[in-house]
């Protein structure tokens, strides 16, 4: 299943990439592949902004605005003016 095109905040700065391949391992949607010793975005629209790649990039080559993706949390965020948080009863 595919979601919207050109909406995610994922940015890869190839100049900082050292080719460690960790982003290709942690991404649950196979958004990264290795090309000529550097990580490359293959299918950016498949990104769900989980943040695994950016967290694990020791060289800060990846940035993404990761967050909670459930609608009620986003509504709460809008109402309270805070970042959406998943405090809807525990384990959502």
């Amino acid at each position, binding site marked *: 299943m595919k979601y919207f095109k050109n909406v995610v905040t994922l940015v890869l700065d190839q100049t900082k990439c050292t080719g460690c391949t960790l982003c290709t391992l942690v991404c649950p949607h196979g958004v990264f592949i290795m090309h000529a010793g550097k990580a490359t975005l293959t299918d950016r629209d498949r990104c769900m902004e989980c*943040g695994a790649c950016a967290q694990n990039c020791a060289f800060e080559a990846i940035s993404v605005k990761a967050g*909670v*993706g459930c609608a009620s949390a986003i509504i709460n965020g809008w109402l309270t003016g805070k970042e959406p948080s998943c405090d809807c009863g525990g*384990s959502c």
Partner: protein
Amino acid sequence: MNKSCCPPQRDQTTAEPPSCCSSKSAAASCCPPTVDRERPGYRLQAYVSDWLQTPIGEIPQVATTLTASDRRGALQMRWGMGRDHYTVAPGLYAVGHPQAEAPVLVSANYKLSFDALRKELREIDAWILVIDTKGINVWCAAGKGTFGTAEITRRVKSANLSKVVNHRRLILPQLGAPGVAAHKVAAGCGFKIVYGPVRARDLPAFLQAECKATAAMRRVSFTTWERLILTPVELMMMTKVSAWILLGLVLLGGIGPAVFSLHGIWSRGLVAAAVYLAGLVAGAVVTPVLLPWVPGTALALKGCLVGLATALIPCGIFVNQLGMLHSFALILALSAVASYCAMNFTGSTTYTSPSGVGKEMRVAIPLQALAVLLAGISWFWGTFSTRL
């Protein structure tokens, strides 16, 4: 040793079955309980099958088969009952008979996660390090950061892991990665992180292949079954708000040309309540299950379409009774409720991004609100105009 009727102590072995104590009524017999692990104020967990001696003392060995009570617990969790305290004590556990070189698997302290892991580890000798994720599953906890760098570093130290194993490697579920910075864990406690497969069932193959996961093991899926088992919780999370809405609708149904009537509650209020419930099921159950086959990208749109299709059924059957205005109200209301509920399912999917969810919500919520408003006007207009 005196020849009593009681079974031997658990560290002795005998080929002979105990004479009087094999029946279930042992409590009423002469014998003390066979479990010698009881401590005042503690309860031995059913998943602990034995205790292993290690350099840091005894470590509980966990069973790799689930019992009826584990399955009952899982069913309860799927229905959202007691999800806030279905936990396992954090710390070190053993599965099989691990030695110093055995792998260390890190898991969350949500019992559903812990059970999903241990049931896949038959024939495997490993250590399981359960970290405190406040009873939340791995992926959600990673998103919140509780399955994270700080907790792993702390738990590795407090569990004395470096005295138990002779290597410095932790195997994490891949879906823990959003909360963990592998390089920071290595710097913090000296353990290198290896990301294992997404699903615990791929762990035996992963370990067999010297900790190499295939591309398929690294991808999340979202099968029909995976979507279906998430729907009861969707419904349960809406019960409180639904109860108020249903009460409100039934009472509003009483309002009519006769100011307020029980007949109105019966004929209009209950129909409105049924329309709401149909919208709920269409959006929170039918849409998730049919997700790949319903047209549209936005979940709000998918829900709206399923709601619309659902609404056409009663409108077709009761075409003569409903009248145009009431049919219009029914279609709008049912589609709006289904759209909203389906939009809420974005929190459970494995592919929607928060940026995308925000985008669809900014368009969908005003439309849903407008549809409900128009439905309300149309409903009352229909009620009053038919009696005039």
